């Protein structure tokens, strides 16, 4: 009985979605952010902050798609933990390899 209640609670936690209006707004935001990214890459004055700014905007777009289009904002937390956990591992993999490359470069010179 307790297990059935547990299952029903989980079933209700799964499958929520945003409204069509929200989807369109997210689409517009993604387009505007992409346009801003391209503009930043062309403006010489933005060069000192270009890398962190572009990475931040890219991360914002990534999160918008994951939260709203992939429904993680409304779906079961289990999906979020699985996806965020391994995405973090992928980010660590990229960072670790780049760090290794930089250190190796130091040794070469």
């Amino acid at each position, binding site marked *: 009985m307790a297990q059935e209640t547990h*299952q029903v609670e989980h079933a209700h936690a799964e499958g929520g979605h945003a409204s069509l209006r929200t989807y369109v707004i997210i689409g517009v935001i993604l387009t505007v952010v992409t346009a801003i990214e391209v503009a*930043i890459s062309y403006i010489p004055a933005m060069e000192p902050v270009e890398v962190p700014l572009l990475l931040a905007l890219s991360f914002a777009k*990534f999160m918008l798609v994951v939260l709203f289009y992939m429904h993680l904002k409304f779906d079961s937390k289990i999906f979020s933990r699985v996806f965020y956990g391994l995405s973090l591992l992928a980010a660590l993999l990229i960072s670790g390899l780049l760090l290794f490359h930089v250190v190796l470069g130091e040794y070469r010179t």
Partner: protein
Amino acid sequence: MAQTDAHALHPPTSTGLNTWKLGFWVFLSSETLFFGSFIATYMVYKSASVVGPFPTEILDIPLTSISTFVLLMSSLAVVVGLDGIQKGKRKQALAGLFTTVLLGALFLGFQAYEFTHFYHAGLTLQTNLFGSSFFILTGFHGAHVSIGIIWLFILFMDILRGPMVPEKHALQVEVAGLYWHFVDIVWIVIFTLIYLLA
């Protein structure tokens, strides 16, 4: 209502979640490591080429910006289609899925043009480290887009040729949509790291 029914169609599980959907999330998570490895390899090798062409000489940001916009809009089209299925609106569902397939094919067209252009400019898989890592990364992404197009086209034809069953099709399109959005977020990362930060 339809979306609740779609999730009630599977036998009870210890988590209460649909096993297909959970398994697919695990698969997508493993794919982040797959693409993460290729992105990391590209970042390490992009400036290690001894001979040209080099990234700054050959990458076309305006063209890729358009193809990025096309892929982002295809993600919007999938959720519009899914929304149509969940609400029992057949025309909206078909329009959403067909638009996604069309935009996906257009994105592949841009990629085919880019690859051809690079080939004529002297950049091949064997030219230098930049060429090898670039073609492997974007090529695998293109292959994923192709699989997504075929998958969504099959679902589109299934709804077109027979009755739309929201309880069945909502889950099918949602899972195919998850795959499509994943391909989209991989491109979001590629666009920034490979093109904008060239």
